[in-house]
């Protein structure tokens, strides 16, 4: 019996995984890009390009499994990147700058959580508001322009060829992998992880069973915010400036990655591995399309189709199971 449900879990991940294989297979069979697409250097660059969305998706997976949504993610990333640049530019040690950036993200997330639980408004509204607030703050602090910061080791975090070459991948990619594993473990093997699933599946039940739902939700949004903060730091590392207008609309990419990976917008379902596969499907698509020299709008159409297709496949599978 146990085997059967494990098989079920495997099948759940199979669809996005096959999607990823399919995307890779299609581009590696295109004569124009064949030779370049599967090169190590290209794979490295796809991995590096994925870091920012992936970190955001780690937090978003938690939020979505818990039955919520975080529309402020991208603004939060921009704000955190600005704060990091501002701090380093002001002469603070880079490590402190990073810390401030991450904590800014965490603070925004924490406020999301507190407002959602205390005002009892739906997450969509609160985070929609916070999306504007964080973006505005970022522009204000940066005085509506980019903040140049002196180059430091922070900018190596997202370097395509890492400085100690034995690292093989950019430090940011390693961070992404470490945090992905940590979050997967958190969701699967900890009490808190079970509580998140329970709240997303039926909040009233969770409360009845003694889960401190308010506290759990604040933690969920704060964690999501911390990941946005880290993602903001990576954005700064990549751009070498703090740009308050960066990552506009990126929250939708992040949400799309989670949904392609099997996350349910009504809560109670989703997985880190699935979300990461979702991130890579989109990253490979972008990369492949660019190599083919296809215009941006083609990429947008393809990704739109994939989102709808992925979720409909998921629905069909659910109906079968019921």
């Amino acid at each position, binding site marked *: 019996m146990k085997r059967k449900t494990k098989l079920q879990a495997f099948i759940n991940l199979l669809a996005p995984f096959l999607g990823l294989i399919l995307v890779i297979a299609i581009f590696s069979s295109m004569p124009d890009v064949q030779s370049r697409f599967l090169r190590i250097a290209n794979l490295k660059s796809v991995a590096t390009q994925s870091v920012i969305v992936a970190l955001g998706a780690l937090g978003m997976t938690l939020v979505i499994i818990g039955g919520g949504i975080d529309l402020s993610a991208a603004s939060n990333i921009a704000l955190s990147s600005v704060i990091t640049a501002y701090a380093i530019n002001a002469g603070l040690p880079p490590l402190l700058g990073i810390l401030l950036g991450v904590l800014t993200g965490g603070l925004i997330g924490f406020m999301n959580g507190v407002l959602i639980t205390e005002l009892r408004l739906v997450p969509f509204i609160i985070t929609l508001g916070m999306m504007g607030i964080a973006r505005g703050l970022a522009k204000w602090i940066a005085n509506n322009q980019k903040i140049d910061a002196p180059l430091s080791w922070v900018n190596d975090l997202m370097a395509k060829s890492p400085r100690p070459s034995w690292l093989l991948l950019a430090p940011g990619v390693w961070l992404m992998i470490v945090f992905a594993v940590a979050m997967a473990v958190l969701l699967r093997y900890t009490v*808190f992880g079970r509580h998140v699933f*329970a709240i997303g599946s039926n909040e009233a*039940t*969770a409360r*009845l069973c003694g889960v401190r739902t308010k506290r759990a939700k604040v933690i969920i949004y704060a964690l999501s915010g911390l990941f946005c903060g880290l993602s903001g730091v990576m954005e700064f590392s990549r751009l070498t400036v703090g740009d308050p207008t960066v990552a506009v609309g990126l929250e939708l990419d992040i949400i799309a990655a989670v949904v392609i990976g099997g996350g349910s917008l009504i809560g109670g379902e989703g997985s880190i591995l699935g979300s990461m596969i979702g991130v890579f499907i989109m990253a490979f698509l972008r990369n492949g399309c660019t190599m083919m020299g296809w215009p941006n709008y083609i990429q947008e159409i393809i990704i739109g189709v994939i989102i709808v297709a992925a979720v409909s496949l998921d629905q069909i599978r659910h109906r079968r199971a*019921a």
Partner: protein
Amino acid sequence: MTSFNAGRLALEMRRVTKHFGATCALDDVDFSLRKGEIQALLGENGAGKSTLVKIISGALKSDRGEMTLDGRPYHPSDPLAGRQSGVSMIYQELNLAPHLTVEENIMLGREVHAGGFLKRREVRKKIRDTLEFLHHPEIGCDVPVRQLSLGARQIVEISRAIMDKARILVMDEPTSSLTKEDTERLFQVIRKLKTEGVSIIYISHFLEEVQDVAETYTVLRDGRNVGTGSMAETTLEEIIQLMIGKKITDLFPRVDHERGEAILSVKDLKGVQMSEPVSFDLHRGEILGLAGLIGSGRTETLRAIFGLDAAEGGLVDVGGVKVLKGRPWLMIENSLGLLSEDRQGEGLALSRSLADNITLSRFSPYKKFGFLSVKKRTQAAAQWINALKIKAQGPYQTVASLSGGNQQKAALARLLHQDADVLLLDEPTRGIDVMSKSQIYEWMSRLAAAGKGILFVSSYFPELLGVCDRIAVFFRGQIVDVRAAGDWRDESLMAASTTGKA
């Protein structure tokens, strides 16, 4: 009453068989229904009642067998085809759009219009006539359905079926959420429909009610028709015996238990949903029943004790710990547990597994530095699945795919796993079969013998009388009388619940 064989056949099914994968849900079932007959369809959970009526309504197709409606072959492709042929189903969970009005709900999907514009006047007259015919003229056409009581909503559903010119009406547990009065009014409606030649298939677990309203019965067991006959010529015991396949010696198995010291004292507690403050004591080794009508304050009191509703005043004393402002997590720490009356809305996380649901209120045994031992947790869940005889593939199965009775057992399993000293049970046996009920009664008695205290809210007097040590009656938010169970009778409970005086 007409004799058993008289009357024209409205529906006939011969040798109908239905498989789901390897399980045989219906095995060569014959079933017939005459014009204007009220026939009860009885059986345990999982006996095949739902499958049978779904085939009749068109929601499912049989693998084999024939079906005729008024003598003509009848093979509906879907529920809409069934409805158009005159077969309507009133579901257990009502199918109404809460924000729409009575009129909009009744006409939904069959709006009368001219060029896209609604022709409301004729329609409204018809609806009013129908509601009048059903003795419910007080239901207004423009009232949003969410403002109606459950009983009134049922009438709206029935009106919809009548406006469809239904000749066969299938009712699945129509009274499980109704008050006694609403039930009585529903029965009047059913009898009225009979006089109009409408045939009714009536599914219910309340056998006394069935005996009251139905003329004939068919009992299914393990997908087979094990008996059909006239209600008047059969006793309840015989029917129960048919349903479970053996003689049930004792519906209320009792394990001896003795009343100890007080474990829960409620003092002038008033929750935000309660109209009056309430005080009472519950002792170790005691099952205290809370009787009364729906809305009389029983559920509200339980919720206030458990901290699900905020308290405005008073306190709860659990084994010496005084709690002023309860919260569910705090009450669980103080060894209280609650079984919600709303199984699907509040009681269970339907999309999660049995293991998740059973262990959700107590993870501590499987926790080390915040990490869970998945294996230990699964094993523990498997033990409770066995102990309560929950029919499931295993601890990983999602609760949504279980039958109602097994879902209820899963909710109870969680409470047992939590190992609370005080159990607050709100309608723990609603909508489940006799065997499962009897098992739950036995568990309650065993828990009392183990020194636990149990508050038992029920709208079904026989089970209160059969299980409880003491029974308190709520009337308009207050406890009007508390007596030993032996000092109550069905009639006195009814009188106290409806008038406040025994």
